[in-house]
C-alpha cells in the first residue's frame, strides 16, 4: 500500500477489503451444515459396514466351534436338537426350492404381462393396469403368508391329499405372485426403452406383432429383462414371512415341493421367536445363516447390475 495516499482513502480501501473477507458469522453455519450433512450420508455407508461387521464377527465366533466344511457341505440341520448337526445345505435347499418355484410362476406371467403392456395394450389400459399390478408389490408379505396358508394350501390339498399342511408349493405360488410385478414392471420399462424405429423397420419387412415382440423387442431389451429376473429371484431368496407361515419349520435336503421344509429366513425367525439363550452355539447359528443369506443376495444384486452394464444395447 502506498504510503503517500491520503488517510481517508486508505481507510476506505481497508473497509472494502474487510467487507469482501468471509465472515465467520456467515461461514460457521455453513461449515456446521456441511459437516452434519456429510455425517447423514455417512450413515448409509455405516449401515453396510455394520451389517458386514456384525455378521462376520458373530459368524466367526460360530465357526470357531463348527467347521466351515461341515457347514457348507452338510445336509442335515439340527442345531436345536440334542444331536446337533450344522449342514446349511438343508436350509439352502428349502430356500432354493421356494425361489425356483416362485420364478416358475413369476417368469412366464411377468414376461407375458410385460409384453402385453409394452406391445399390445392401448395406452389407457396400460396406464390403469400397470399401477394395479404394482399394488401386488406393495402388499405386506405377512398378508401373502396368510393367503398362502389359509387359502392356497387348502385348495391344493383339495386337489391332492399327498400335500402336507406346510409345503413349499403353496409358498412358491404365492411368492411368485408377489414378485410378478417386479418382473413385469422392470421388463416393461426395458422394452419401452427400445426405439420405435426398430419395431417399424421390422413391420416394414412384413413381420407380425408376435415376430416383432419376440424377434426384435425382447432381444433388444434382454439385459433389462434378465436383470429383472435376477432381482426378482434375489427378492424371493430373502423373503421371510410367506415361507415362515406357509412352508414349515422342517429343514430337509429335498426339492420335493409337497412336504414341509424350512428356508434360511424362516430359520432365523424360528430362533428369534424361540427361547434359545443368547450367546449359545445354537443362537449363533442365526448369524452364520444370515451371513450366507446376505452373501447370496449381494452376489445376485451385483450380478444384475453387471448384466445391465455389460450387455445393455445402446441405441442413439
Amino acid at each position, binding site marked *: 500500500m502506498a504510503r503517500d495516499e491520503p488517510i481517508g482513502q486508505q481507510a476506505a480501501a481497508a473497509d472494502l477489503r474487510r467487507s469482501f473477507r468471509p465472515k465467520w458469522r456467515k461461514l460457521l453455519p455453513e461449515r456446521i451444515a456441511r459437516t452434519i450433512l456429510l455425517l*447423514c*450420508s455417512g450413515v448409509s455407508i455405516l449401515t453396510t459396514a455394520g451389517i458386514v461387521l456384525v455378521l462376520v464377527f458373530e459368524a466367526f465366533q460360530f465357526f470357531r466351534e463348527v467347521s466351515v466344511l461341515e457347514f457348507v457341505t452338510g445336509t442335515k440341520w439340527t442345531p436345536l436338537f440334542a444331536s446337533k448337526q450344522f449342514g446349511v445345505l438343508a436350509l439352502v435347499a428349502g430356500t432354493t426350492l421356494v425361489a425356483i418355484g416362485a420364478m416358475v410362476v413369476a417368469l412366464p406371467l411377468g414376461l407375458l404381462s410385460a409384453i402385453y403392456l409394452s406391445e399390445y395394450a392401448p395406452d389407457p389400459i396400460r396406464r390403469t393396469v400397470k399401477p394395479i399390478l404394482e399394488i401386488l408389490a406393495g402388499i405386506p408379505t405377512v398378508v401373502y403368508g396368510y393367503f398362502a396358508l389359509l387359502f392356497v394350501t387348502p385348495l391344493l390339498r383339495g386337489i391332492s391329499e399327498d400335500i402336507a399342511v406346510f409345503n413349499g408349493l403353496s409358498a412358491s405360488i404365492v411368492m411368485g405372485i408377489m414378485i410378478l410385478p417386479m418382473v413385469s414392471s422392470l421388463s416393461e420399462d426395458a422394452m419401452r426403452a427400445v426405439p420405435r424405429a426398430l419395431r417399424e423397420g421390422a413391420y416394414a419387412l412384413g413381420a407380425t406383432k408376435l415376430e416383432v415382440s419376440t424377434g426384435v423387442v425382447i432381444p433388444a431389451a434382454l439385459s433389462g429383462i434378465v436383470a429383472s429376473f435376477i432381482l426378482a429371484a434375489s427378492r424371493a431368496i430373502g423373503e421371510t414371512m410367506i415361507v415362515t407361515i406357509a412352508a414349515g419349520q422342517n429343514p430337509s435336503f429335498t426339492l420335493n415341493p409337497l412336504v414341509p421344509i424350512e428356508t434360511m429366513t424362516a430359520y432365523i425367525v424360528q430362533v428369534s421367536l424361540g427361547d434359545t439363550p443368547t450367546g449359545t452355539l445354537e443362537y449363533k447359528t442365526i448369524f452364520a445363516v444370515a451371513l450366507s443369506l446376505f452373501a447370496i443376495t449381494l452376489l445376485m444384486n451385483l450380478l444384475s447390475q453387471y448384466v445391465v452394464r455389460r450387455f445393455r444395447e445402446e441405441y442413439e
Partner: protein
Amino acid sequence: MAAITPSEFRKRMARRKWQGRVFHGLCLLAVCIALTMLAVMLIYIVAQGWSRVSWSFITSFPSRHPDRAGIQAALLGSIYLVAIAGVASFVLGVGAAIYLEEYAARSRFARIVQINISNLAGVPSIVYGILGLEVFVRSMDLGKSVLAGGLTLALLILPIIIIAAEEAIRAVPPSLREGAYGLGATRWQAIWHLVLPQAFPGILTGVILAVSRAIGETAPLIAMGALTFVPFAPDGLLSRFTALPIQIFNWTSRPQAGFHEAAAAGIIVLLVALVIMNGAAVIVRNKFQGPNAG
C-alpha cells in the same frame, strides 16, 4: 432363397397371423391371471375378516379368546414405529440427499455412496433386524424397545428416502440456486430458503411411500426381538412393543379359526392404513406440484 407360390404364401401368412392371435391371447391371459389373484386375495380377506372389524376390535387388547381379541397394542405399536422411523429416516435421508446432490455431486464419495445405496436396497429385510438387534438393542442398550424397532426400520427405508429426495432435489432448476448465489447467498442459505421448499413435496411423497413400506414389515422386527403377545399399549420410547403385522402373523399361526378371522380383520385395518398413506402421497404430489412441474 427359394421363391414360394402365392398359395403357399397365403397358407404361411394365415398360420403366422393365427400364431400372433394366440400369443396376444396368452399375454392378455397372463395379465388377467395376475389381476385375478389380486382380486381373489382381497375378496377372500374381506370375506374372512369383515365381520370382525369393529370399534371394539381396534380398542381391545389381545386375548386368549379369539372373539374378544383386539389390536390396540399392535396398532399403537405400529404408530410409534412409523413415527420414529419416519422422523429418523426423514432427517438422515434428506440430509444425505442434500449432501450428495448439492455438495458432493459427481465426486468419488458420492459415487461410492450411490453404489452402496443400490446394494443396501437389495439386502433382505431380516438382515436389518439382526443389525438392529446387535446395534440398537445390545450395543446402544436400548433394549427390545419400540425406539430400537423404529430405528431399525429407519435404516431399512433409508435407501428409498435418499433416492426419492435426490430426485426431488435434482428437479429444482439450477437457475434458482444461481440467482441466490448472485445475490450473495451462501450455499446453505440457497439450500435452506430455495431448494428445500421447492423439493419438499417430492421429498414428502417419497417419505410417505417409504413409511408405508415400513408399516408392513414383520421379519426385521421379529429378528430384533419384538414381542408377539403384548397386553399393554407402549407408554414411552423404551417400552416393549408389538406391531400390527406381527399380531397378524401370530394369529395366522394359531390353529383356531377364530384367530384366523381376527388375523383377516387385522389385515383389513393394515390395508386401509396403506391405502390412506398412498392416497396421501398422491394428493401431496398433485396438490403441491404446479402444472408445469415434472
